[in-house]
């Protein structure tokens, strides 16, 4: 079968990870500012709080997507001859989008949140102009077009090299008489599935962005609010999930280097990714469980598919990783530890998410801080941990020759420990706050809620310190690379 045969396109990917690392630290600081304000330890105007919230949300979702895309591109360029210029177009459109979004928020005052829920962008109550809202949405369009172009190139090449979508998804093995030896590498299956669902998500996103833009410019143009909401959450759910499913490619590709056993495309693996493809698309109604205008079957589907989504994650990806860890000695360094942490954090974070996907629970947890509670677990301790792990792996050679000579230095242990304790404490405080019915997205908190926010802020500082150590070690690794 097709084995890795091309030199991966490392340069632009390494640059991407520099940008991502710096942006993450900046946006985490925005997050800390929000939590400090909720703790009443600092005081900022609500308008500024909501601008920061919009920048943090859009920026973090975008950065997660960016790091996922970098992992996808890097590893797929090992297997298929991706056209390098496409990645540069993707990165250019992404950065253009970032400029438009930041301008819309901090110059235009846009604070309609990353979800731009129709018709809020057009009805700000005087806080921002429709020009600012349009600029924000155009920023999304630019980023969306970039993702589309990038995915179409990856998809096109995988389809050509592995015998169509069916071959790249390992359907002959999953559902037919295909043999394990003929199946594509595990990461190709993950890449094909993520590419398919992210293209679908971005297309829905583009449609609702255009509808919202027309609504801004032609006030008489009516959009059904429930339809718009459906499309926004199809897009939002798929996009953020795709970032995790792309990042996990780093686990499939890198962990075998540390264990010596390849991550095979087994039958169970192939079947599970076909279900992932289905579930990621079908699960989005779990964001609309408090909309009784939705047909009941859609809400029931949302609840059931939320639960089922846990099976491929826990019983396949997490379970296989546990088998690897038990079966043979793994070399621990910053990269392997962070990648394992990423899968663990993703698994742990899926639990409060699945529970909130039950309609009865959602009735009292939806839009409380329970929600940022669960998604920060699988983002901070999941997707972003994998991204930091990928960064550490990119510079592993430079780091090995470090003066200490050990693979896992004391500073690395300190960084991971700080990040893990900070991330766990920070997110558990959100869950506790959610269970105490503290709403999400409130600039100002009641006096009886400030102590949770204060404790959470302390943990957030640890997350930022840990992240800064990861990024510094990456930059030093890159510098060391050049000297060599």
């Amino acid at each position, binding site marked *: 079968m097709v084995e890795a045969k091309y030199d991966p396109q490392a340069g632009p990917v390494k640059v991407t990870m520099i940008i991502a690392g710096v942006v993450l630290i900046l946006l985490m600081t925005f997050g800390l500012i929000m939590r400090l304000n909720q703790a009443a330890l600092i005081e900022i105007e*609500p308008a500024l709080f*909501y601008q920061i919230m919009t920048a943090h949300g859009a920026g973090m979702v975008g950065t997660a997507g960016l790091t996922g895309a970098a992992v996808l591109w890097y590893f797929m360029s090992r297997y298929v001859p991706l056209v390098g210029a496409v990645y540069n177009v993707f990165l250019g459109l992404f950065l253009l989008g970032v400029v438009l979004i930041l301008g819309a928020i901090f110059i235009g005052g846009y*604070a*309609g949140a990353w979800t731009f829920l*129709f*018709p*809020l962008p057009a009805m*700000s*109550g005087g*806080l921002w102009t429709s020009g600012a809202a349009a600029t924000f949405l155009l920023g999304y369009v630019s980023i969306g077009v970039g993702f589309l172009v990038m995915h179409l190139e990856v998809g096109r090449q995988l389809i050509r090299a592995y015998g169509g979508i069916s071959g790249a998804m390992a359907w002959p093995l999953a559902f037919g008489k295909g043999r394990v030896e003929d199946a594509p590498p595990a990461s190709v299956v993950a890449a094909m599935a993520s590419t398919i669902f992210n293209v679908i998500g971005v297309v829905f996103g583009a449609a609702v962005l255009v509808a919202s833009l027309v609504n801004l410019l032609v006030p008489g143009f009516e959009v059904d*609010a*429930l339809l718009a*909401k459906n499309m926004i959450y199809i897009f939002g759910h798929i996009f953020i999930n795709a970032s995790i499913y792309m990042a996990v490619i780093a686990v499939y590709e890198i962990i075998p280097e540390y264990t010596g056993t390849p991550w095979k495309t087994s039958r*169970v693996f192939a079947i599970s990714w076909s279900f992932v493809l289905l579930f990621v698309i079908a699960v989005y109604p779990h964001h609309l469980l*408090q*909309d*009784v*205008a939705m047909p009941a079957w859609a809400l*029931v589907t949302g*609840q059931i598919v939320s*639960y*089922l989504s*846990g*099976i491929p994650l*826990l*019983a*396949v990806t*997490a379970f296989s990783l*546990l*088998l690897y*860890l*038990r079966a*043979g*000695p793994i070399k621990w360094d910053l990269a392997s530890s962070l990648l*394992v942490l990423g*899968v*663990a954090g993703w*698994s742990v974070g899926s*639990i*409060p998410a699945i*529970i909130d996907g039950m*309609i*009865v629970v959602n*009735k*009292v*947890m*939806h*839009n*409380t801080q329970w929600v940022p509670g669960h998604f920060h677990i699988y983002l901070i301790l999941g997707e972003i941990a994998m991204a930091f792990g990928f960064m550490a792996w990119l510079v592993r050679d430079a780091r090995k020759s470090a003066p200490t000579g050990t693979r896992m230095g004391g500073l690395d242990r300190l960084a991971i420990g700080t990040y893990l304790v900070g991330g766990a404490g920070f997110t558990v405080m959100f*869950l*506790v706050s*959610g*269970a105490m*019915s503290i*709403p999400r*997205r*409130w*600039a*100002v908190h*009641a006096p009886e809620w400030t102590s949770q926010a204060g404790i959470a802020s302390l943990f957030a500082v640890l997350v930022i310190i840990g992240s800064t150590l990861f990024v510094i070690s990456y930059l030093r690794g890159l510098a060391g690379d050049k000297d060599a």
Partner: protein
Amino acid sequence: MQMIVLAVSLVLMALTALCFAAAIRSGGSARPADRSEERRRGLIWAMLVVGLVVTSVSLREWPHSVSAAAADQTVNVTGGQWFWEIDKTELPRDRPIVFNVHTADVTHGFGVVNESGRLLFQMQAMPGYVNRVQYVFDKPGNYRVICLEYCGVAHHDMITEFTVAAN
């Protein structure tokens, strides 16, 4: 409800984390388990069975059901930037009450909180739709209405109150 949800979540999360911790601590010394695929199948089946039970128990009574018998106890609620308007502010206890939830502008979230600050239920207020939600208040007292869908700069200030009579 919320505290049970928190406790169950934290226990399951801790167990999952422990599986990883144990695997890491085994240091790769565990016997290469030849029964591991059997165990995996067991886990999948166990998750399916638990899922079936939890789904049917949690949906046997439709969580959003609104009964016709409650139609005489109807309250109209309207959310707008940034206020709540509620056409009855004194409600009876122990009787099903139906709230018709409207919005005057963007999407809001109609959330009702009891005196100890616990969220009792919520419903989205969508432009172009009237969403109905039913609840039985079993304790008299003051209840607060809050907004649970981000709606702009004074979202956190959209608060009003109603009372449930002692009799």
